[in-house]
């Protein structure tokens, strides 16, 4: 069976593409992955999603988006795509035991968090090393937590931790935060948060759980060990494009290149293959921009399929 459209990914870009494509009666198949819902599944309240004055919980927003797409006829399969062949038509996509075929594909695989790779990090994951502060903050009641990073994710993590932890430190390798102004202001006004500028994580130490971290001041070169109960990693993200290498044109950081030109903005180097969201976007990376691009990709795919 050759489908009209396969959407790979299930963040705001993938689900929005699914809503539009389903409403265009393309009966899209969404290969949502084992961990469906994307990065917003790891967040608390989202305050910048338009139309939600009181904010909306990230996981709830994603579950609603998914149900919205299903309501209009999108098919959801929670399997991880392992391989694609975009060199011949129909395009082939491998997920689980199946091979799916389609005339058009939208890639919306998003981005995944980057681990620091320092010694001790992997060994102590789940035992003081964590990647989801919103999930794990309550375990750090009256404890000392370090957040590594300087973007919105790091700042949100630090703020979430202040509700429980005794002391929260933000460890950032530069001398200013990348996070949005409103978030930076909240951090600076919060007495529980201290920022360690120009500082890099070198090692996580501990036997059965995190006991200390080793950091290095990248100006003076001085290294020191700090007593810690928790280390939250929010260094950044990298586009999930491993399986598209040598098939789609990527930039030097691994983001998929799209035309960016009207009237077919989301077209990749292969006709009939479109890309949207954080897998493309190295600049804005917002839920609402990803959703917007997902919409564009669905409309581009619809137009492409009509012309076939």
């Amino acid at each position, binding site marked *: 069976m050759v489908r009209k459209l396969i959407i790979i990914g299930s963040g705001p870009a993938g689900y929005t593409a699914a809503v539009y494509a389903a409403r265009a009666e393309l009966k899209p198949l969404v290969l949502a992955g084992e961990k469906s819902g994307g990065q917003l599944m790891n967040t608390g309240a989202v305050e910048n999603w338009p139309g939600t004055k009181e904010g909306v919980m990230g996981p709830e927003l994603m579950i609603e988006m998914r149900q919205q797409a299903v309501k209009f006829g999108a098919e959801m399969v929670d399997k991880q795509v392992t391989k694609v062949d975009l060199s011949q038509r129909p395009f082939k996509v491998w997920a689980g035991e199946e091979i799916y075929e389609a005339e058009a594909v939208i890639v919306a695989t998003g981005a995944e968090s980057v681990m620091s790779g320092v010694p001790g990090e992997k060994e102590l994951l789940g035992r003081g090393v964590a990647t989801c502060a919103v999930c*794990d903050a309550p*375990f750090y009641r009256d404890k000392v937590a370090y957040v590594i990073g300087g973007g919105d994710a790091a700042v949100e993590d630090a703020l979430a931790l202040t509700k429980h932890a005794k002391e929260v430190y933000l460890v950032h390798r530069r001398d200013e935060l990348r996070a949005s102004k409103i978030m930076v202001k909240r951090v600076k006004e919060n007495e529980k948060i201290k920022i360690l500028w120009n500082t890099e994580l070198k090692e996580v130490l501990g036997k059965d759980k995190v006991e200390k971290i080793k950091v290095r001041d990248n100006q003076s070169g001085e290294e020191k060990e700090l007593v810690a109960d928790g280390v939250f990693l929010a260094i950044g993200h990298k586009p999930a494009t491993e399986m598209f290498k040598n098939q789609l044109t990527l930039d030097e950081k691994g983001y998929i290149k799209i035309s960016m030109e009207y009237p077919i903005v989301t077209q990749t180097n292969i006709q009939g293959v479109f890309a949207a969201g954080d897998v493309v976007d190295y600049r804005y990376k917002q839920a609402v921009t990803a959703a917007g691009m997902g919409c564009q990709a669905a409309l581009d795919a619809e137009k492409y399929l009509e012309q076939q």
Partner: protein
Amino acid sequence: MTAVIFSDKDFEEKVVKGKGVVMVDFYADWCGPCKLAAPIIDELSEEYKGKVVVGKMDVDANQQTTGKFGIMSIPTVVVFKDGKEVERMSGFAGKEGYVKLIKKVLGEA
């Protein structure tokens, strides 16, 4: 069939002093990835009926057990064999990840 719900009151008796293989999903209602794990944990309890007792524990309501086992991240799944911890996995692993863990403990891998 849904997963067994464990509490501080019965954990000792049903898991620590229990026989056979028991898998426990430590979760909370406010955790996004836990919401993804929940239906899978229920499915596994059905699929491994008679072989593995699959259950879950709300970390908010059961801080005693959660603390005793050093759960500091959710979702965390711990697998016990004859009352002893044999496997542990933090973070949502997808169905495949959980099946792998069970198979390893059952010696089917």
